[in-house]
């Protein structure tokens, strides 16, 4: 009997395991569909930790919630992970329209480098500046949605570089302590006002990645800091040094927890990472600002920026007339016919290519059909909707903004009052977009130390520069003087640092040319020529800019509204003749600018002459109208005379017959 049990037991266990696996697989993606009922689904759910164990209120040493295991019970986590927010690392599949990059800044060495794993011109891959997944998180995790770099195995991101030997073993241990930074589903979909991304950012700053989502949601508080623990910390032996304390009142008798999950994320959730602060009226004058007109009308971000289970959120860049990217990837990822219906044009004017009749008509959510009175249609061929409707109204010289991700806005309380001003984000810059139209952009001027080989410039990792030239860059000064937020850099300093970089012993393969040291700032490439610092133009020094669409201003505040041609066609119009600030640590006190026309690829003299003609436009109108009236009156006079002749002739004919 015992032998029979011994024989059958493994089979029973195997079958049981298989059945459980099948059941779990069956539930996967259960929540990704829609049964047709519009009522929101109540998320009274079990919480699961990263080891697949259910979290219960009575647990002595509970672990933090794992989004993969909790949300993944009903939603297809891996499908979500392919969405825009989560796929920018090694799983990168699409570049899409250029967007706001991550910004690697080190003020002390006068460095600001746009970083992105997408193939955006002007950005550098994290690997180019020695950022592996771990270091990337250390830099950017405060406003990181999780997933991607947060879930990479320690060496996974470096395999592509063919440099596995350089994997820092210490980082492997740190990953174990900090845990994976899984996709934080709650950061977007948790409508509870208790959701606090500032707390998540604090946990990330402590390298408590595993805990970030749990603490941010308000489900638990955490004591302990992963970054302070030894590399060899092991909770099994050293005892729990990061203590998770759940709010027990949140658990019901079945250890289920109610989470106020919504399909459409509230705008408040988006704002944490996607806010922009206008620096013309910061701080106490913040209250004067209006919200985006769509928000003021009661809409939310996700009304236009929609997505399916794949989380490929529509970015508004595909309008009914054009897909500017012409990439097969885009065509695979998006149903262009549907996505285009939620662009500016799609909502307000309809998407003629849509299958759905309603989408062809436009007017989603009551979007008014614009009249554009007095605006010749040629404007719609040359300008994007955003050119007139979005961003800050242009002034003689560009303004500055701070963005949530670049300046780490939104961190409160224990974070302290950190208020970084660099990088200076210049706005609005009216530049040519991928679709050939002119639209407003935010822009930064990259500045970094680097090397040039065969004309290709690559930035140096900030830590390496600190190591090479600590004295020249004034590392020892505790509070260096700042001018226009920069620590000023002189040409002499540049020369000295370039010399030091030139003396650095690079690990070169045989036959490789020795890289030439360079510094990039303010649109110029600085290098040494016979011991002297010279500056030249170079693609690598070109500013990085990305199109913006928000805040959208009301129609009355749009450029050219109600026939105000002079908004753009005046000889001083900032839209065309504005000056774009050049931001550089070299002579930062001096006002350095570039003409706006350079970015719009416009012929300045032509537009000056064109603006000049607008001085005579009122005369032209008067002359043409008076002449037309005169012509009309003379024509009418002769028409009446002709009619008189016809009447007389007809009268004579009748009389003669009688």
């Amino acid at each position: 009997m015992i032998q029979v049990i011994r024989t059958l037991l493994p089979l029973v266990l195997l079958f049981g395991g298989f059945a459980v696996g099948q059941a779990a697989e069956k539930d996967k993606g259960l929540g990704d569909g829609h049964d047709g009922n519009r009522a929101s689904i109540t998320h009274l759910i079990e919480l699961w930790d990263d080891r697949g164990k259910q979290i219960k209120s009575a647990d002595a040493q509970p672990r933090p919630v794992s989004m993969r295991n909790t949300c993944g019970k009903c939603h297809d986590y891996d499908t979500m992970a392919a969405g825009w927010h989560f796929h920018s690392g090694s799983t990168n599949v699409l570049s899409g329209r250029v967007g706001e990059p991550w910004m690697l800044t080190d003020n002390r060495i006068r460095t600001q480098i746009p970083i992105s794993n997408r193939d955006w011109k002007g950005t550098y891959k994290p690997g180019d500046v020695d950022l592996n997944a771990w270091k990337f998180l250390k830099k950017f995790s405060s406003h990181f949605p999780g997933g991607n770099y947060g879930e990479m195995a320690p060496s996974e991101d470096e395999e592509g570089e063919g440099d596995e030997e350089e994997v820092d073993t210490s980082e492997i241990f740190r990953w174990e302590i900090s845990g994976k930074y899984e996709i934080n589903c709650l950061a977007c979909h948790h409508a509870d006002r208790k959701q606090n991304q500032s707390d998540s950012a604090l946990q990330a700053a402590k390298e408590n990645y595993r805990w970030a989502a749990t603490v941010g949601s308000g489900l638990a508080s955490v004591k302990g800091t992963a970054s302070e623990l030894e590399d060899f910390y092991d909770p099994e032996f050293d005892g729990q040094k990061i203590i998770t304390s759940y709010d027990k009142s949140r658990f019901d008798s079945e250890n289920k927890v109610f989470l106020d999950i919504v399909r459409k994320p509230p705008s408040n959730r988006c704002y944490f990472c996607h806010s922009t602060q206008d620096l013309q009226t910061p701080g106490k004058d913040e209250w004067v600002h209006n919200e985006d007109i769509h928000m003021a009308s009661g809409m939310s971000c996700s009304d236009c920026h929609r997505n399916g289970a794949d989380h490929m959120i529509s970015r508004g860049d595909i309008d009914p007339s054009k897909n500017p990217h012409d990439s097969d990837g885009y065509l695979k990822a998006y149903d262009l016919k549907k996505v285009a219906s939620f662009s500016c044009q799609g909502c307000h004017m309809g998407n003629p290519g849509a299958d759905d009749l309603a989408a062809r008509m436009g007017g989603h959510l009551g979007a008014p059909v614009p009249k554009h009175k007095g605006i010749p249609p040629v404007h719609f061929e040359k300008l994007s909707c955003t050119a007139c409707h979005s961003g800050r109204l242009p002034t003689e010289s560009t303004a500055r903004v701070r963005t949530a991700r670049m300046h780490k806005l939104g961190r409160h309380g224990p974070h302290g009052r950190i208020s970084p001003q660099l990088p200076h984000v210049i706005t609005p810059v009216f530049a040519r977009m991928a679709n050939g139209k002119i639209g407003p952009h935010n822009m930064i001027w990259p500045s970094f130390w680097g090397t040039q080989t065969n004309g290709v410039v690559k930035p140096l990792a900030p830590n390496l520069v600190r190591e090479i030239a600590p004295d020249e860059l004034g590392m020892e000064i505790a509070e260096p003087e700042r001018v226009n937020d920069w620590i000023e850099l002189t040409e002499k300093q540049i020369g000295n640092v370039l010399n030091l970089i030139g003396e650095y012993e690079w690990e070169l393969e045989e036959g490789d040319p020795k890289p030439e040291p360079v510094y990039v700032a303010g649109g110029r490439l600085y290098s040494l020529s016979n011991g002297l610092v010279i500056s030249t133009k170079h693609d690598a020094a070109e500013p990085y800019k990305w199109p913006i669409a928000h805040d959208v201003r009301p129609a009355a505040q749009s450029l050219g509204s109600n026939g105000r041609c002079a908004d753009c066609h005046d000889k001083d119009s900032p839209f065309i003749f504005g000056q774009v600030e050049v931001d550089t640590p070299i002579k930062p006190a001096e006002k350095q600018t570039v003409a706006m026309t350079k970015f719009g690829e416009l012929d300045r003299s032509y537009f000056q002459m064109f603006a000049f003609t607008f001085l005579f436009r009122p005369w032209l109108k008067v002359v043409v109208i008076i002449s037309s009236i005169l012509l009309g009156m003379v024509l009418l006079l002769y028409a009446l005379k002709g009619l008189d002749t016809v009447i007389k002739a007809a009268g004579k004919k009748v009389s003669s017959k009688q």
Partner: protein
Amino acid sequence: MFQTISWVSLSLVLAGIVVHWIASPSSLLAKREAPDAGGRPSSGCGVGKLSTLACAVAFGSLFILFVTGFGGRLLLGEAIHGYTLMVHVGLAPVFVISAGVMLVAWSYQCGLNENDRRGLASLLCLRKTAKADTVNLAWKLTFWLAMALVVPVSLSMVLGMFPIFGTHGQETLLCLHQYSSLALTLVAMIHVYLVVRRKALCS
């Protein structure tokens, strides 16, 4: 579409003029010339200096307007833009003013007299007409038609500069401007041809 219509209509009118020139040389016209019943000069040969100047300016500016407006569209298929647009818009008021002066100066001479009216009535009723009744009719009619077309051509341009018409309205105005300009050009070509023939006859 507009490009095709323009090419076809311009070709037809030019071809018509050439055929007419060959089929009906000036010598034949001289034989058909009849005294003007109303006692007014039967051709535009005797107009004053101002009207001659206005006439020259109007046709000169119309020619440049035609070249700038239709050149790019007909040859390259692209809409008018850049410096060409500036020249086009800059000349437009010159043309409209000179057209106004021309109308005032010429309208009396171009009025239809008894013969013309008889000829026109016969043509409208599809009756056979006396040659003397229609000899002056064509250039007079083309004059009035051209003048009538100047009004939509100029108004369709200037009204678009006021915040009255929306996008659809602007497109309609542009369409109206294009087609009325084409019609004006064609009528002006015929008129010039007829007047030049008469001028040749007078001299």
